[in-house]
């Protein structure tokens, strides 16, 4: 397991500059910049026929279905520690253009969404709607949302940061 990409990735996620609205490299092995035209689909529905209204209203993982039938997993957005569902759910069943990184690893192929727009003529927007929505829900700045989220706080109070209830972490 390597850690070489972490500083680059954290810089990229925390950065707000990218006037060109085109994908940045995150320094991940197997990444390739990609701008693709896709339909946003409910993955569970697409694979099994178990469908929900409005693709599950943001509670189901979504997929990016290309014209040739290729199905991509958008595993990440441009917010730190967040997925892409908040950015994609407004486009359930619609065609969009997605800009980001297509990452092919031995275990998985996935897409890191950095920008998106509805086709044919929607405006480009950064894929950071997880923190936008979190900030609206919680009434506070979302820059370090993961340290202030009530669900996370409750879970880590229950288990501790090691996931072992009653065991305290003592730095070496």
């Amino acid at each position, binding site marked *: 397991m390597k850690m070489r990409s972490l500083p680059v990735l954290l810089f990229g996620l925390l950065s707000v500059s990218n006037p060109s609205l085109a994908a940045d490299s995150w320094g991940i092995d197997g990444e390739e910049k990609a701008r693709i035209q896709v339909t946003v689909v409910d993955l569970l529905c697409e694979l099994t026929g178990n469908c929900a209204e409005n693709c599950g209203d943001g509670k189901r993982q979504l997929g990016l279905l290309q014209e040739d039938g290729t199905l991509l997993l958008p595993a990440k957005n441009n917010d730190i520690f*967040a997925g892409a569902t908040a950015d994609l759910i407004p486009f359930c069943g619609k065609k969009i253009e997605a800009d980001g990184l297509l990452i092919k690893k031995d275990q998985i192929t996935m897409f890191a969404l950095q920008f998106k727009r509805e086709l044919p003529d929607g405006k480009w927007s950064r894929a950071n709607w997880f923190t936008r929505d979190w900030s609206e829900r919680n009434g506070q700045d979302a820059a370090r949302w993961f340290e202030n989220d009530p669900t996370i706080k409750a879970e880590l109070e229950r288990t501790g940061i090691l996931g072992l209830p009653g065991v305290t972490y003592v730095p070496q």
Partner: protein
Amino acid sequence: MKKLTFALCFALSSFTLSSTHAAEGQRVTLTGELIDTWCYTSEIMYALGTAHHKCAVWCAVGGIPVSIRTEDDQVYVILKVEEDDTSVANPRLVEIQTHQVTVNGDLYARDGVNYLIVDQVADDHGIVHINHEDFGIQPF
């Protein structure tokens, strides 16, 4: 008349095929650790066990897909857990994040991703990778 019947049958079958891409899954029983799919597969940090548990909870609540990573280093993205059809910030997955579990379910392999529909968490061994003394807390 036969031609018309054939044409109608063909048209109806074509509509059925194009209206759903659903396929049969493959029944599987898998044992492995629940992981944050992004941190583990992108290799941006060490992403297993107690060293990474806090971050794995952050990412699960943040809506990044949760997967099972088996001993042969295969990754299975979970789309459903038992009766719960949700897979974004799913409370059950947050609760058992990083645990080693044995699950029964259906596997759908498509375009480089193993998708898993879990219909039963048959066994939960808790967290078995106790590795924070070796790796510290990842990423911070």
